[in-house]
């Protein structure tokens, strides 16, 4: 019941790792399926990211707290049940707050259920760690996911519509690049972000090599 084998990492690290080192989108390329479709504006992307984070954090907490009660054989079914519940909650909450937003996100809110990120964290982390850690992990991963989704949405909206959160950022004569709000633009933007990440990681690895060698 102590931490993982290599000793327990600092609590803060559970949060920070999701932002960069293990960023769910840019590094692990997880959970993009149900999210990419609504990343055509910054608002939708942010809402989707927050909704996903909400589900992620709460399901992490619940699953972590139930981890000793749930027999192994039925754990996946239970996880799905828990996640689906929170997704339904989010779905209704968004409807109550803004119908327009709900219309924009559509069925993709419900699809958070099958976001591999959430089930993945439940299985890989929450089922093995305490509530505090699981909460932090959910927070970190959720934040990483939200930031990633937002950076996709922001790029797509700025180029594709010339606006950010609906506010004009360019001169009125700006010619929007409509392709960016089309699905193909989503693919390209994600690919571009991945390229940037790959390039940065590769450069860091090169830079770090001589330093790490003696260790």
């Amino acid at each position: 019941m102590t931490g993982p084998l290599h000793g327990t990492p600092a609590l803060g690290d559970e949060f920070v790792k999701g932002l960069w080192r293990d960023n769910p989108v840019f590094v692990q390329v997880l959970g993009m399926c149900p999210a990419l479709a609504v990343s055509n504006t910054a608002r939708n992307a942010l809402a989707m990211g927050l909704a996903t984070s909400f589900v992620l954090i709460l399901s992490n907490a619940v699953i972590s707290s139930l981890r000793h009660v749930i027999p192994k054989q039925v754990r996946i079914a239970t996880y799905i049940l828990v996640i689906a519940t929170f997704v339904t909650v989010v779905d209704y909450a968004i409807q109550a707050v803004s119908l327009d937003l709900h219309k924009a996100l559509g069925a993709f809110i419900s699809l958070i259920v099958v976001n591999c990120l959430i089930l993945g964290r439940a299985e890989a982390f929450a089922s093995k760690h305490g509530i505090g850690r699981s909460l932090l992990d959910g927070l970190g991963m959720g934040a990483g996911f939200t930031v990633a989704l937002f950076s996709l949405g922001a790029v797509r909206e700025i180029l594709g519509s010339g606006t950010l959160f609906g506010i004009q950022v360019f001169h009125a004569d700006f010619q929007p690049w409509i392709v960016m709000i089309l699905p193909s633009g989503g693919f390209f933007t994600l690919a571009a972000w991945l390229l940037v990440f790959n390039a940065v990681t590769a450069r860091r690895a090169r830079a770090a090599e001589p330093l790490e060698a003696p260790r």
Partner: protein
Amino acid sequence: MTAPARTLEIRTSPHMVSGYSVDTIMFNVVVALLPVTAFAVYAFGLAALLVLSTATVTCLLTERVACRLSGRASSLGDWSVAITGLLYGLTLPPGLPLWMVVVGGVVAVALGKALFGGLGCNPFNPALVGRAFLQAAFPVAMTTWSPAFTSDRFTALGSSTLTLPFTRPLYDAVTSATPLALWKFERQASEVGELALGFIGGSTGETSALLILVGGAYLVARNMMSWQIPVAIFAAVAAFSGALHGLDPETYASPTFMLFSGGLMLGAVFMATDMVGSPMTSGACLLYGAGIGMLVVVIRVWGGMPEGVMYAILLANACTIHLDRWIRPRVYGATAQEAPR
């Protein structure tokens, strides 16, 4: 009569090679494109000249940068980027703002070619990737056509060409419609003679069917192009649209109109036949061409856009590897059961 003293060069057989080389083939394609290019400039004047030269220069520069970034030797010498640039320019509307031409050119070479590893690795025709990107990004600009053969075409530029970067182009009052759009939206057919000679509106290089065919014939005669592809495309388009036209001449355009309008000629002769993106065996080429032909008719007749050649070729490009795999000549002496995988 002394025995030679010099050291010998050791190379493995064969010690003879044909005169063909990638750069000669590509250079000949450029040559074959020249009449079309010249006509484009003649028909659309200064605007076309600017579009074509901007397109070519952008593509060349992008390739140069891409080569440097990836640490490869400069590949400008193989002429393939020149083809990409020229072809890409020929598919654009003559009045397209030059900044858009630059954007598409960068996309064509960077996204369509360099990302995949350069010459020979690009699954899609780079020129069409650039054009398709522009079509998706700036649909209005890409479907606004300036008229051909205006009297002041060599002295004046349309207002759109020199639009400031990233701003919306403003068009002169006079824009023309392509024959395909006229047919699609107004059921108005153009004269086939005018279509063949190119006295119509459209992309810079797609208007003169005759010159395109001349260029294609030159390449076929030099065995630098697969004749199967254009022939199969023409046959499929003629057969399919002919059948439809026979059923209902009011709704469906005649096969001659279908053949000579839009980018079909340019696409069939110069784009679909791009060696990298097309299948390798003649059987597969026939099927590939037939597929393009059918798709063109389907998209033109039932689809949302008046023109579908670009999409048809891109989709066929994606199928090339499957065609190559299915239609492979039976290996000599291989038993029939041993189907090629």
